[in-house]
């Protein structure tokens, strides 16, 4: 599988719940490479890519945080809008349904984190399109 691990963390919208998580990670010198938050008034999901996902998951679960680990596609593209929109179009044009996506910059390039509805299909399409996929870098 050409995927990377993503952590999804249940966040209560209580003062300090995000800060508690971030400082637990930085205390152990775990670097956050990408983060996205989806939330309502009551709760949210924090999705994280860190420098050491296994260690981060164990650490957070130890302090009583609910953590889910799953696989996502990480596509490395040129850091411009044209490349971004071309990539998304070729995925969706080939029938890939995207549940959510977020991006971050790494070594001068843009990395797209994509969670498709059907991972197997998305991997096939991405390979066929010749996308540069990052595999678990830890």
């Amino acid at each position, binding site marked *: 599988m050409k995927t990377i691990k993503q952590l999804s963390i*249940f966040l209560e919208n209580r003062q300090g719940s995000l800060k508690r998580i971030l400082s637990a990670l930085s205390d152990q010198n775990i670097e956050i490479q990408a983060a996205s938050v989806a939330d309502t008034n*009551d709760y949210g999901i924090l*999705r994280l890519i860190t420098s050491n996902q296994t260690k981060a998951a164990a650490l957070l679960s130890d302090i009583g945080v609910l953590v*889910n680990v799953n696989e996502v596609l990480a596509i490395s593209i040129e850091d411009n809008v044209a490349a971004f929109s071309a990539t998304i179009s070729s995925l969706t044009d080939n029938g890939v349904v995207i*549940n959510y996506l977020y991006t971050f910059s790494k070594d001068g390039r843009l990395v797209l984190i994509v969670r498709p509805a059907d991972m197997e299909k998305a991997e096939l399409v991405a390979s066929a399109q010749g996308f540069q996929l990052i595999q678990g870098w830890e």
Partner: protein
Amino acid sequence: MERKYWEEEIETMPRRQLEKLQVERLRKTVEIAMGSKFYAPIFRERGITPESINSVEDIKRFPFTTKNDLRSTYPFGIASVPLQKVIRLHSSSGTTGNPTVILHTRRDIDEWADAMARSMYATGLRDTDIIQNTSGYGMFTGGLGIQYAAERLGAMTVPAAAGNSLRQFKFIQDFGTTALHCIPSYATRLAAVFKEQGVDPRDTTVRIMIIGAEPHSEAQRQRIEELWGCKAYNNFGMSEMCGPGVAIECQEQNGMHIWEDNYIVEILDPVTLEPVPEGELGELVLTTLNREAMPLFRYRTRDLTRILPGECPCGRTHRRLQRFQGRSDDMMIVKGVNIFPIQIEKILMQFPELASDFLITLETVGDNDEMTVQVELAKATDDFQLLDNLRREIARRLKDEILLTPKVQLVGKGVIPQSDGKAVRVKDLRQNH
């Protein structure tokens, strides 16, 4: 051949004979309680004497005793014997006002150990078992009460006491513990500790769990049995009656046999205080028949239950109480609807996505009552839609049960407050409540 009962004669006594025994013991109890500064004047006023007791029906001549009576006579005002005959005191802390105190003579302690040993035997526990007790050894009767009973049974008893889950984990494995006494929420918490340590609780030697001291649903029992791969038996005790050992489920797991040689059982309408028709839900009211230091007459337990009809296949003749359906003073009236927390728990248990703790908050918003139910997620997900659907589905199923739609709030671990290791179920912040 191994005997089937701890005390066959008493446990299988024909009802007629059992009632005769109750009348005899009620007379004896009245005689003892004439030594109580609290009961003596009441008896005089109502003409209650040992000789005037002719049938179990005479219990209606007695007034009720309430927790308030215990508070207002704190600490020794109800004692029926000189304090010199008292060898132990248990106390439960009150959140308001005085705590309550229950006194025991040597005979009381002895009879109590015997009743609880009888209860343990009914669940299949034997002297070959290793019983680990996770209750606090202090004023709470679940510690010493279980200890004495397990020793009476002849089992090897591990007085692990409350808390320190890693130590419980180690003891269970090192000693080959075959039975645990714990509150139901701790059974699930301890199972989680095992899993965190990479051990499936099903792989331990634990075969029987005695659970009690906390209301729980049938679904919660089943979850405990699945988690541990064991049998879990509901055990009813209350310190006012002695402690654990008042009633227990036999291996049929269909209702708790209440030991009627030790108690007169009444099920009353909590408002009119008249008996409910046989088999209907009402408040459990108990009279002790085998205690000396502090007999109590018609004690209002506030627990709601019913008598299960028919005979139990196990052969015991003592009647069975249904799992408690809540407390008569827990009932919430929200927008004119009567609701018990156990109804909410029953629904929440149907969701594998949830852990077992929850909190109901009642507030006044404008002129209306608002109910919020906080539920604890069992695991995280990356799927936002899933959480939203879950929340909607919980609200929908709750509405089917309680006829109004509460606000449902998902929370993570450790948010729902605990007190004395028990989850707090209801927080009523309404004005005029």
